[in-house]
C-alpha cells in the first residue's frame, strides 16, 4: 500500500468520478479553472492512466459510504444540489472536449482503483470517446394540446368529415347515435394522428443526427405538464446542428395546427449515448 493510499484511508476519504476524457484534452483544462466540485471544500483533479484521464474529487466517506448515501439520496434537496454540480462539471468539459459522462454516484475508495478501471476499460472508453467527438446530445420533447388536436382531427379525417355531414342531415334519433360513433372515432383518430406526428419527429430528426433514442416519459412529467407525449435524445454533430434545428422548427410549424408542440433542450453531455452499440 502506498503512502498516499494509506493517507486517504486514514482521512476517511473516497473519490467521486464525474467523467472521462483523453489525457491530452484534459491537460488543456487546468483543474483550477473548472467549476466547484460536488462537495465544495474539495478540488477537482484529473487522474490519468495511459492516454485517458478521469475527472475526480475527494469526498468524505462519512457522507458517501453505501449506508450514508442511501440516507442522503432520500433527501431531495441534497440529491438535487449534488446532481446539478455533477451536471455543471460534465457540461463544462463537454463544451471543450470529447467526454464520457458517468452516471451519478461512481465512487472509489482509492485512486489506484480508478487507474485500474481506466486501463481495464480503456478500449471501450476510447471507442465511446471516438464516437462522441465533435458531437453533442439534444433532447426533443413532444407536447400535445389534446383539445386542439381533437378539434383539428375532424377536418383532416375524411371518415369523420363524412360522418359529421351525414349526422347533420339525419333524423334526431339517428343523429344521436352517429354523434356517439363520431366521438369514439375522434378519440381513435386523434391517437393515431398523434402517433404519426411523433413517428415523423423521430424519423425526420433521426435523419439529421448520428443516433436517436426514445426515452421514457417520467410520471411527474405526465402529471405536471399533462401533455408531454414523447421524449427523444439525439446525438448531433456540432457542425450540423443548424440543419437539425431548422428541421425541428419546420416540424414544429407543420404540427402546430394539430396541437403538437416541440421543445428542444441542450446541448447536453452525451449521457444517452455512452453505450457501445
Amino acid at each position, binding site marked *: 500500500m502506498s503512502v498516499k493510499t494509506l493517507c486517504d484511508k486514514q482521512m476517511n476519504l*473516497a473519490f467521486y*468520478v464525474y467523467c*472521462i476524457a483523453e489525457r491530452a484534452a484534459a491537460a488543456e483544462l487546468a483543474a483550477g479553472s473548472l467549476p466547484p466540485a460536488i462537495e465544495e471544500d474539495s478540488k477537482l483533479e484529473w487522474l490519468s492512466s495511459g492516454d485517458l484521464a478521469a475527472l475526480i474529487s475527494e469526498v468524505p466517506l462519512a457522507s*458517501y*459510504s*453505501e449506508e450514508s*448515501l*442511501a440516507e442522503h*439520496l*432520500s*433527501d*431531495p*434537496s441534497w*440529491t*438535487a*444540489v449534488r*446532481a*446539478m454540480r*455533477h*451536471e455543471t462539471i*460534465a457540461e463544462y468539459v463537454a463544451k471543450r472536449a470529447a467526454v*464520457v*459522462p*458517468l*452516471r*451519478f*454516484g*461512481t*465512487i*472509489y*475508495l*482509492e485512486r489506484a*482503483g480508478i487507474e485500474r*478501471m481506466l486501463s481495464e*476499460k480503456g478500449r471501450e472508453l476510447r471507442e*465511446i470517446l471516438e464516437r462522441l467527438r465533435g458531437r453533442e446530445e439534444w*433532447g426533443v420533447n413532444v407536447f400535445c394540446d389534446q383539445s386542439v388536436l381533437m378539434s383539428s382531427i375532424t377536418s383532416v379525417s375524411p371518415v369523420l368529415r363524412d360522418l359529421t355531414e351525414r349526422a347533420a342531415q339525419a333524423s334526431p334519433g339517428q343523429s344521436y347515435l352517429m354523434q356517439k360513433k363520431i366521438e369514439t372515432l375522434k378519440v381513435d383518430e386523434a391517437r393515431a394522428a398523434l402517433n404519426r406526428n411523433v413517428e415523423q419527429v423521430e424519423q425526420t430528426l433521426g435523419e439529421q443526427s448520428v443516433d436517436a433514442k426514445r*426515452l421514457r416519459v*417520467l*410520471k*411527474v*412529467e405526465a402529471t*405536471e*405538464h399533462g401533455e408531454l407525449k414523447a421524449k427523444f435524445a439525439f446525438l448531433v454533430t456540432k457542425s450540423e446542428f443548424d440543419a437539425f434545428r431548422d428541421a425541428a422548427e419546420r416540424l414544429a410549424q407543420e404540427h402546430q395546427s394539430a396541437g403538437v408542440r416541440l*421543445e428542444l*433542450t441542450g446541448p*447536453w*453531455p452525451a*449521457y*444517452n449515448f*455512452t*453505450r457501445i452499440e
Partner: protein
Amino acid sequence: MSEQLEQIDILEQSDVSLLETLDHVLNRGLVIAGEITISVADIDLIFIGLNVLVSSVETANEVVRKRG
C-alpha cells in the same frame, strides 16, 4: 454561497430544466461499477419532494415580504 442559499438558487430554476438534469445525471450516463455502489432514489419521488420544498420556500418568502 452557503449551502442553503445555493439550494434555493438551484430549486428556483425552471422545473423542466431541473427535472431534465436530474433525469440525465441520475438515470443516464455510463455506468461503471465503482467500489461503492449506490441505488439512486426514484426520480419521481425526488422531484415531488423538491416541489414541496420549493413551495415551502415560496411560502416562507411570502411571509417575509408581508412582514417587511
